[in-house]
C-alpha cells in the first residue's frame, strides 16, 4: 500500500513536472517536483524507503529525459538516504527545518548530479550557483507547502464534513 502510494506520488510529480515545463520559458522550471516527493517520502518514512524512492524516481526521470540512466537515480538515492537519516535523527516537524532540509537536499542533489556529468566529461554546466540556489528555494517552498497541505488536509476535510452535517440538520 505504501509502495503504491509512493509510486503514485512519483508518477504524479513527473506528470506535473512535464506538464508545467511546457509553460515555462526555455522548457525548465526552478522546481524539481520529483525531488520534493523523494525528500518528503524520506522524511516521513525513513532512509530505506527514502533511498528506494529516490532510486525509482531518479531512474524513471533519467529514462524519460534521455540522459545517462543512473546519474539522476544515483543523486536521488543519496538524497533520499540522507534525508531519511535526518528524519530519523532529528525532529523535522516545523517549517523552517523542513525548508532547510529541502534546500540542502536540492544542493546535494545538484552537486552529485552535475558533478557526475562533469566527472564523466558528458556535459558542462557553467556557473550554476544561481540556478541551483533558485531551484533549492523553489523546492523548499513547494516542499514546506506540500507538508502543510498534507498535514492540514485531513483536518480540513473533517471540518468540512461536520459543517455539512450541521447544515443538513
Amino acid at each position, binding site marked *: 500500500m505504501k509502495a503504491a502510494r509512493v509510486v503514485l506520488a512519483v508518477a504524479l510529480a513527473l506528470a506535473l513536472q512535464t506538464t508545467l515545463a511546457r509553460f515555462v520559458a526555455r522548457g525548465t522550471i526552478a522546481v524539481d517536483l520529483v525531488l520534493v516527493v523523494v525528500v518528503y517520502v524520506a522524511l516521513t518514512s525513513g532512509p*530505506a524507503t527514502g*533511498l528506494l524512492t529516490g532510486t525509482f524516481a531518479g531512474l524513471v526521470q533519467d529514462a524519460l529525459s534521455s540522459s545517462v*540512466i543512473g*546519474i539522476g537515480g*544515483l543523486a536521488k*538515492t*543519496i538524497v533520499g538516504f540522507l534525508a531519511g537519516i535526518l528524519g530519523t535523527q532529528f525532529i523535522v516537524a516545523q517549517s523552517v527545518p523542513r525548508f532547510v532540509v529541502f534546500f540542502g537536499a536540492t544542493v546535494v542533489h545538484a552537486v552529485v548530479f552535475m558533478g557526475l556529468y562533469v566527472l564523466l566529461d558528458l556535459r558542462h554546466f557553467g556557473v550554476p550557483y544561481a540556478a541551483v540556489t533558485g531551484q533549492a528555494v523553489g523546492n523548499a517552498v513547494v516542499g514546506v507547502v506540500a507538508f502543510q497541505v498534507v498535514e492540514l488536509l485531513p483536518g480540513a476535510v473533517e471540518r468540512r464534513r461536520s459543517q455539512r452535517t450541521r447544515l443538513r440538520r
Partner: protein
Amino acid sequence: MTLLQIRQRSGYLFLGVMLGHILLISAQVNSRSGVPVLEAVTFGIFSEIQRGVSTAVSGTLRVWNGYVGLRHLKVENEELKRRLAAAEMAAQEQRAQADRARGLQQLLDLRDRANLQTAAAEIIGAAATPDFRTVTIDKGTRDGLRPDMAVIAPAGVVGRIVVPSARAAKVQLLIDRNAAAGAIVERSRAQGVIVGGGDERLRMEYVSEVFDVVVGDLVMTSGIDGIYPKGFAIGRVETVEKSGSAYKRITVKPAVDFSALENVLVVVTPTAAREASEGSSE
C-alpha cells in the same frame, strides 16, 4: 527489529543501490579512451588484482630463489674459501721459495766475495734451552766440518761450530754468553773482544779509553782469534760509555738477525792462526 539493525539494513541497501547505479552508469558511458567506463573500471580493478598477485608471486619466487641462491652461495663460499686457503698456501710456499732462493743467492755472492772455501748449510734446529744460544745445521763432519769453524751469513758473522756430528753440527751463536770473537772498529781501528751477552746484544770489551769509538761505528772481525776470518761484519756500535777503568763499555747491535736465519755458510778454509795451532800440535 532494533534501531541498529534498521540502520545496518538501510546502510547495506544504500551501498547495494549505489553499486547498482554505478554499474548502470558505467555500462553506458565511454571513457576518454573510447572504452566503456564499466570495462575500463573493471579492467583497472582487475589489472590491480593481477598486479598484486604478480607482485606476490614474483616476491615469493624472489625470496625462494634468494633462499636457494643463499644455499648455493654457502656451498660456493666454502669451496672458494678452500681454494683461497690453498692459494694462500701456494703463495706462501712460492714466497718462501723466493726468499730461500734470494738467501742462497746472497750466500753465493758472499762465497765469491770472501774468496774462502765454504760449505752451505741449512739451519734445522735451535737450542734445547734458552740459556744457550745455539742452532743446529744440516752439515757435519761427513761434509768436512770441524769444531771452531766460523759460520757466517750475508749480513755478517753468525758464530762457530762447537759440536759437529756426522750429518749435523751445533753452532754457537755470537750472542751466546760463552761466545767471543776478536773485533776491530772499522773507522778508528780500535781493537777489542766481542762477547755475547745472552740476549740480542753484544759487548765489545777491552777497548782502550784512548780510542775513538762513537755510536754507529761498524765493528768487524779482526781475525786474531784464529776462528773468524778477518773483515766480516759483526755489528754497529749502539752505546759507548765510560766504565771508570781504562776501558770503554761498548754495546754492539749484531749485524745478523739471529731470529731470521735460515741458511749459513761454514768457512771450511782454515785461518792462519788455526793452521799454526794445528801445525804446532802435530
